[in-house]
């Protein structure tokens, strides 16, 4: 859709809801853009979606950071699984 035309009031709730649903498919960043887009809205339902979307986003971000930390530090000691999981093998390690 043309980005230069702002959303009409009636459409906002349906768009917000759809983004909320899409975010459940392992897409926390969609929740993040939804929050950015609808941050200033006062409609209670939209605020509900935005709030819980942000909560979900930060939770998944935390999980991701934990997983990366674990992977980076324990990759060597995992032997074969470690290697098969890696997309990139840094130079200079075994």
């Amino acid at each position, binding site marked *: *859709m*043309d980005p230069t035309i702002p959303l009409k009031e009636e459409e906002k709730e349906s768009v917000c809801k759809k983004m909320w649903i*899409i975010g459940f498919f392992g897409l926390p960043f969609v929740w993040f*853009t939804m929050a950015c887009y609808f941050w200033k809205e006062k409609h209670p339902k939209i605020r509900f979606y935005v709030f819980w979307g942000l909560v979900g986003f930060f939770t998944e971000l935390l999980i991701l950071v934990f997983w990366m930390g674990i*992977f*980076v530090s324990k990759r060597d000691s995992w032997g074969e699984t470690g290697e098969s999981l890696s997309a*990139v093998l840094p*130079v200079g390690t075994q």
Partner: protein
Amino acid sequence: MTESNTTEPLNENKNKKEISDQSEENKEQVQEKGKEKGKGKTTENKNEKTIVKEPKISMYWFVRVFARKLRNVLVPVTLTMLLVIVLIKITNQNSDTTDQFSQILIYHESSSDSNSKKFGGSLLNAVVIVGVVLVMTVFLVFLIKYNCWKIIWGWLFLSCFWLLLVFGALKMIDVCENLNLAVDWITLAFLDFNFAVVGVIVIFWHGPLKSNQIYTILMCGLVAVYLTTLPTWTTWVLLALIALYDIFVVLSPKGPLKILVEESMKNDKPIPGLIYSSIIYLFSARIKPKNSGSSSSSELNSNFNPISSPSSDSGSGSGSGSGSNNVNSLKEESSHLEKGESELEKDVENDNTLAEDNYNEKSSLLQNEERKKRRLLARRKRRRKKRFEEESGVKLGGGDLIFYSVLIGKAAYFDYETIFTCWIAILVGLAVTLFFLAVYAKALPALPISIAFGMIFFFLTKIILVPMVKQLGVDSVMT
């Protein structure tokens, strides 16, 4: 292609602005006196009987709007170039890196060939590429003519998604390899999937304007980085040919782009795709999307059907398609002044009648009047500001971004000096194009001037400046 919505030449615009501005200026403190050029109009101040206003300069308004437009255009172009340069430098891309592109070209460049053979071969390659682009544009025009909007949307959607997914992943892996980061498939897949889906949502559906702009820049940057892997001679000849093609396709009456624009305008359906829009139109009701329709449609062209298909795919024409816009247009968004002016004049009338009617209750009336005037003044300032911002909105075609960045990418292979000189040259070319846009107020190709300047300065820098600087450096060390 630069296009302005108003078909009136610039002068009439300026006159209208003058009239409306003068009625406004009466109430405002005009500090820009130094720049004012009086036109000697004694404005019929319907509103203020008190102030003798300064004749307002439309020249100043014009310069301010132009400067704002220029800034709105330069920022995305510079950011795309920056992205391309960073990616190239981090992944150490140089003339030795070959990519999938090189395998589909007819003529494979090798350094042992003579110059004329290289030139001939690259000309052949470039002609083939431009030919493909032309075919895809014509195909798109047919699709629009026969109202196959679903096919168009689906094609664009798939190719953008594919582009972001695959090219994004490849580049992420390259960058991680060069920065020696250990990344696992799970994280990579997750991040890449998110990146692609959010991009597609923001471009083809609703999303904050900033995200739309950022993703347009990212997409054009990615395409440009992959295009720079073409062999050197082929790239330069391709750039020159694309600039010429752009002139033909935008300016000639038979050009497919013109037809594209007209068709899209007729049906009032914008074609989604890679266009960088700098502002949101606040008064969406009064600004008909006709302009946005035309601008978006003109941008579209598929450049990459054969080219960007990665080695894995074969028949999946999905890939590449319309990911990029070959048609380069800069569209100027001009606000509709007529309605704005009539609104202002209506306010003026109200104020006038109020003042005349209740002449007796002078003191309270004066207070009311003062308050009303102040409110009117504030409202006018806000409206003026919005109109100013709307007038300085520009839409830039994705193809422009891509080919400017390809030029800079090629310059990045060589040296930092070439990067700087080419950057400045392209920006100057853009400013000149914007100026012509304001003067001619119709669709203009944005590529040729900038690319011409860029190429001239690249070769001048490479042949003259770099050896000179090196020699000076050596001399100062020796002596």
